[in-house]
């Protein structure tokens, strides 16, 4: 918990998804990350790892290459194809240059060969997190599309130069869309991250807020930016 400007805010620890099939490494790395203050979830095969990475937002994914059911290269490629831009660190016993290049080309952000020094692994994860934060700060402060300009820091939105009044939740939802632009966002994920599963709200709340945002910033009859993906959720395209 931290106190900022007199407001008590809940601090959440960075979350790591560890996709690794070797029980000894699952145990030691989970302990290592937790002792360093991370929240850790694990998956022991590629299929489950991919499923988890698609349904929940993690700060970093630590991904083994040689996994049962679906290998790490495939998991990484499918994550990127689905628009998930979470930082991926590949951890593997494959050391040939070709493997490293393949991993990085498929969208991995970093690569560490086994046997690795655990302190180097922690340092690389910290570096990835710093990079992600920087990227988010850079993209979030100001954003514009069509005739809409958003200044998240000042909580100001203008359309065709005129101020648009947005409620706090609408602004948060817009910020979430901008953060995760071009990615399919299931209603559950939006609820969890924008409303933090407030008991009073349900997926209908998301629909209503999306309708209001469309009315104010998009074309409600034929949305150009906030699209409904039937039966799955929403996608904000930039």
């Amino acid at each position: 918990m931290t106190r900022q400007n007199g407001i008590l805010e809940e601090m959440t620890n960075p979350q790591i998804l560890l996709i690794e099939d070797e029980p000894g490494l699952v145990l030691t790395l989970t302990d290592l990350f937790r002792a360093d203050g991370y929240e850790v979830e694990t998956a022991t095969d590629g299929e489950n790892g991919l499923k988890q990475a698609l349904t929940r937002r993690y700060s970093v994914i630590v991904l083994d290459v040689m996994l049962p059911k679906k290998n790490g290269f495939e998991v990484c490629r499918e994550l990127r194809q689905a628009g998930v831009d979470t930082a991926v660190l590949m951890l593997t016993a494959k050391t040939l240059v070709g493997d490293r290049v393949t991993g990085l080309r498929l969208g991995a952000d970093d690569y560490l060969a086994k046997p690795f020094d655990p302190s180097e692994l922690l340092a690389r994860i910290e570096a990835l997190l710093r990079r992600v934060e920087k990227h988010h700060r850079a993209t979030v402060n100001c954003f514009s599309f069509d005739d809409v300009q958003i200044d998240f820091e000042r909580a100001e939105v203008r359309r065709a130069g005129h101020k648009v009044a947005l409620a706090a939740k609408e602004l948060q939802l817009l910020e979430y869309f901008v953060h995760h632009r071009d990615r399919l966002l299931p209603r559950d994920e939006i609820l969890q991250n924008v409303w933090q599963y407030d008991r009073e709200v349900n997926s209908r709340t998301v629909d209503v807020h999306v309708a209001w945002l469309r009315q104010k910033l998009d074309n409600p009859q034929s949305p150009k930016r906030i699209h409904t993906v039937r039966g799955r959720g929403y996608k904000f395209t930039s």
Partner: protein
Amino acid sequence: LLSLLIVTVVALIRFTRGTEKLAEMQMNFVSGISHELRTPLSVIRAAGFNLRTKFAGQPEQVARYGKLIQDESEKLTALVEQILRYGSAELGRILGARELLEIAALLEESLPDTKQALAEAGVMIEERLADDLPSIKADKESLKHALRNLLENAVKHGNKEHARIRIRARKIAFAGTPAVQIGIRDNGPGIPTEERKRVFEPFFRGKLARDNQVHGTGLGLNLAKRIIEAHGGTLVLRRVAGEGAEFVATIPAANSNDTAERNSGRNDESTNSSD
């Protein structure tokens, strides 16, 4: 002249293919061994780091990590032994001194773990050993290694939920002389027809094992076959109806001179002890 040219081209193609195959096998070997070495080393390194920096004062974690390091070191030891044995076999030194051995005791010693530990891990062992099994004259450590490879193979590739290994041993006539036949059968998915011919090739690993990341170097079955054959026996993959795969080893029995020698040795011992 034309036929000479054709023969030369064919020979060249064969030579190139042979070289390519050898290179591919060597690559598989390096990549397989590298993975098998790097993974336990990573676990040991991470466990050591956690112990030193996070859990030094927590006896439960120290015990848990101690066991983990021990297990991983044993995996490395087994791997090193497999590689060294393969190296010796390649140099033609496959067997050491032979001695008279009883199959039942040898099988017991060859299990990759104690029966209790296997049962705890969900592996059921069913043994059916005939009472009239003859003794064999064999290099104990090498043959134990061969049998252990077969038993480990059955554990690794057996049914993941309810692994059952059937071990049977009986006396048979082999090329007109008595022999012991040992069958080791698992209840896993079996070996696909297209892979049956290749299972004894060094470094060969089945598709299912590769896809499911089952640990292994591809040397175990090759070594088992070479060791058993060096004893004058055979190792074959038997066609079985239904689930699983069965490997059948046939090892010639010790001849009457060897048994007589042992019996006289026993008599001497009993004479000595009565003295």
